[in-house]
């Protein structure tokens, strides 16, 4: 599956992983590097790591590859960034979690559950007219489910944003 989804102007989706010092301001410094180049951030996940002095960030952003290469260099230049890397073109473990709440009258429930089954989505809430599910997987799988659920009308959707980890002995 191609990690790169190409849009207009050679724009593509990129998955960037950063390992940063856990200091106030580090998030703004990183966001400023993107915003100054007019590069849109699609998702951003900041989390703790095995070491309390450091955080990990996963950023998915859309734009052209040359600009992104420049952005990665500028991120690496930040004093609080230990390393920043574009993983878009590498085989890494990638996961995302999403919650969907759809319109679902009783007569369409069976159909909905069939879709959920196909995507290994878990029903987490049910009411007379709604159904809520949780699904985990690659971002592309979540995109596909989203497309399927449109026919039911998606009332609400929330996604955690992609997190990734290098495979095997390699460090992220």
């Amino acid at each position, binding site marked *: 599956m191609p990690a790169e989804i190409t849009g207009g102007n050679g724009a593509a989706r990129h998955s960037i992983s950063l390992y940063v*010092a856990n200091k106030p301001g580090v998030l*703004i410094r990183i966001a400023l590097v993107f915003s100054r180049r007019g590069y849109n951030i699609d998702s951003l996940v900041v989390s703790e790591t095995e070491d309390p002095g450091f955080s990990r960030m996963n950023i998915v952003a859309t734009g052209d590859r040359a600009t992104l290469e420049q952005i990665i260099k500028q991120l690496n230049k930040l004093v609080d*960034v230990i390393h920043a890397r574009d993983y878009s073109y590498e085989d890494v473990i990638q996961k995302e979690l999403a919650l969907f709440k759809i319109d679902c009258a009783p007569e369409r429930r069976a159909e909905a559950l069939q879709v959920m089954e196909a995507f290994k989505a878990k029903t987490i809430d049910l009411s007379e007219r709604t159904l809520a599910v949780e699904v985990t997987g690659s971002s592309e799988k979540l995109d596909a489910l989203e497309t399927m659920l449109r026919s039911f009308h998606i009332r609400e959707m929330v996604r955690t944003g992609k997190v990734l980890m290098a495979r095997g002995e390699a460090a992220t």
Partner: protein
Amino acid sequence: MAVQEKTGAEALVDIMIEEGVEYIFGLPGGSAIPLFDALVGRNIKLVLTRHEQGAVHMADGYARATGKTGVALVTSGPGATNTVTGLFTALMDSIPLVVVTGQMPAWTLGLDAFQEADVSGITYPCVKHSYLVKDVDDIPRIMREAFFLASSGRPGPVLIDMPKNVSGARISPKADTMQLPGYSVPKAAQDAEVARAATLLAAAKRPLLLVGHGAAISGAATEVRALAETLQAPVVNTLLGKGVLPETHELNLGMLGMHGTAYANKAIIDCDLIMSIGSRWDDRIVSKYDEFCVNAVKIHIDIDAAEINKVVKVDLGIVGDAKTVLRQLLPRLVKGDTADWVRQTKRWRRDFPLKFQKEGKLRAQQVIQELYRLTGGKAIVTTDVGQHQMWAAQFILSESGRDWISSGGAGTMGFGLPSAIGAQLGRPGETVVAIVGDGGFQMTLSELATLFNLKIPVKILVINNHYLGMVRQWQNLFYDNRYSGVDLEGNPDFVKLAGAYGIKGFRISRSADVRRVLKAALDHPGPALIDAEVEQHDNVFPMIPAGAAHKDMLLGPPRRVLEKPTGGT
């Protein structure tokens, strides 16, 4: 009674002294009082400026003239926001500064307390790094890191925002070991890269060395000279690379770019290899990116990896310190066979010299050229921004990178006078001249009071054309001579103004007086201001209109109205 531990402010001053700080430029306010208090009786000289922008530019001029880190100290809120232009100026030109801003007590942050501003937030894009100090015990470490970050690698300004409760708190003795796991400073290049550079250089018939500020910062003058002489390669320098190879050297073609010499720009068009040593291919020199040196091999040495391939795609990028990399490269060089090429550049120099009109009204170029002759190329020259800056760049031939001080990347009007004050403090006993325009000078002229107090012999040469000349030039050339917002009517009498500050004033209005008056001003033992009333409508040439190709350089006034430039300013 047990000995009281020192305050955070005292610890801060201790470290500044250990770091070799001689001068602090600044202006106090409520939040900075503990910091100023800690300076009383200490072995650091405090220079009280009239405006915080002046303080930062003074620290900047001091840093450029000496290579040491400049230090400024201001208060919170408006004191801190007044430093922004100075920080931006220093960041754009890679100048090592430590700027300490007093801040309201930590518990008021974000609550709109009096003079509480989000200084970190306002300054993120204008600093190499910054700190908001929350624990007094962190001060020693942060100060060490700040000085290290400011001056190492690609230098830049570091800001320390210091809440009053922190600077006033008692410190418990703590280690000051730096913790910078995300920061590393490249030094040497990989052998293979150096070998490749040597091969490319050996193959070149028409090599050209492009020397930028990075070469000056790295102190690579000896290596650049050795490189140029061994290869027999002509050299062009950027505005901030002036003097790394003395501009009187026969291989140096002077400044390139928008207002560079015709011979430097012609060399750009015809070279078959160009090697940048610490220049970032700024738009002032490259102009039209897709037509810049298209057929030349491009090599780029830079300490900042983010500069490689940023705007100009290169054949070989080498990340490292200019001096170190050139030292690795020199033993591998073979003497180039470039006699024809060098002869060609000499023909250009002869056929397309810098020139100006000698008849009629007094010309700025004449005044600047005469100043150059009188000082024998030995003065430290600072400039403001505009036409006078470009004329100074053309007619002052620099002998050393630290003798030419000008705001390049930011183009900050108001920089000339305060940077000259800082430079003179850093290098007492040398001649320092600030060449300024009548517009920019008025942006920071309040520092005349600072100058008077210091009693240092800075000379200020006001190139007075009664216009915001550089903007007028653009309106003249590209906007059908429609002047808008450029007439500086209402200017004061600068000689009287100087007098009001206790500074001796001189005036030049005729060509015949230039030498005599300049000499009198230079011989005057104290500070002096020279008001040179020059031709109002002169334009700077050569000129490559912003975004145009080098081949479209104008050598003199065009006969028609030009298209509006495609580049920025």
